[in-house]
């Protein structure tokens, strides 16, 4: 069986996917994950998940974020007001700008 592996670098951080291992059971999967994925990169915790248990929906199945103009739900659309008066609002807008830019890059990459 294949087990997908998610690594958390530091306590309090997110577990992000880092690869998979072949193993007959969860105990062995944890051991292999430790050896293959937790040895060099900083690791605080690993999750191993049986691959058949993972449900997937991808960009071929759906259009993430819809197909119509949804600019109304982005902070940067509201150009008549300025986010800089409050650091947390400005930070949120920066995060949204990054997400929007990355989204466009992915879309552009997918079409090429």
């Amino acid at each position, binding site marked *: 069986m294949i087990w997908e592996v998610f690594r958390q670098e530091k*306590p309090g951080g*997110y577990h992000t996917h880092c690869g998979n291992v072949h193993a007959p059971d969860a105990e062995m999967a944890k051991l292999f994950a430790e050896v293959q994925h937790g040895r060099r990169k900083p690791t605080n915790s690993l999750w191993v998940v049986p691959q058949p248990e993972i449900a997937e929906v991808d960009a071929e199945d759906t259009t993430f974020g819809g197909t119509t103009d949804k600019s109304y*739900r982005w902070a940067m659309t*509201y150009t*008549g007001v300025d*986010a800089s008066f409050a650091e947390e609002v*400005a930070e*949120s807008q920066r995060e949204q700008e990054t997400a929007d830019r990355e989204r466009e890059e992915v879309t552009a990459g997918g079409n090429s």
Partner: protein
Amino acid sequence: MDIETVKERAAPRAFSPKDDMPEEYRKAATRMIQFHANSEIMGAYLERPFIRQAPSLDRKLAFSAKVQDEIGHGQLLYRAAESLGIKTREEMLEELATGDGKFLNCFHYPMEEWVETPMIGFFVDGAAMRRQATLKRSSWEPYAHAMDKVCFEEGFHVKHGEDILRELATGSRAERERLQEAFETWWPRIIQFFGPTDDKSTHHDFASEVGLKQLSNDELRNAFLNAYIPKAEKYGLEIPEEPRIRKRDDGTYRVVEDDLDWDEFFTVAKNDYEGSHVQIGKRHDTQEAVEWVRTVLDEHEQTSMGTAPAAAD
């Protein structure tokens, strides 16, 4: 883990469901996160009618997206609260329906006019965001993670709220007058958003010692006033004479607490205010109306168990 160890180890995102946390911590965190989750839901219900009443298509779309976001935040937070093992999501939703679940003071008041929407959309959301940004450093990791996503989305809400405020503040004289009236109605409630002063706050000390919350009521209220009083003034809003707000030499503000109606605040806090019954009742009725959807989903989950993994919430 005993309480002393918890206090020693308290740090941003220090504790997760893997840790054996004492009941006192888990109860305090549940109370705090459940309150937050309930508030997201009740706020969404208050704003929902404005999807229909929005004056333009752009506003309608934005309001609809916002209400959807807030319900999503509620769901995220119930998950974070549930992970403490004190109450299930079903129990918390049930408590909200029966009137046992507590939620933010501002959401106990009716909001009927479009001109009132920036009071929630800008000032209350702005106050909430100030607080939520500090909770990214909460010691309960699932709560802090929920705040990452909530804060990511909230920037849109606050800017959209300010955009409505700007539009009304540069509108006709009649609009500006009604805006000022709405501001005067909502202002004391907004000040009370942060609760009573530190010396009267019941839960602060423990929550702070174990790192669940980062700043005190007073510090947060002050941080809010610092950023939002200039905004109100920028849009020509006159700050009501009461509650009296004094600027200290160091630039921080002191609110004369006795100018605020604390009897009303504590009645609201007990869900006993007239508006509390109305808002809880509205949500209860809506829940009843869509009961069949939950029943169908539950039945489906039961029958598909064993053949497929349970769907995520």
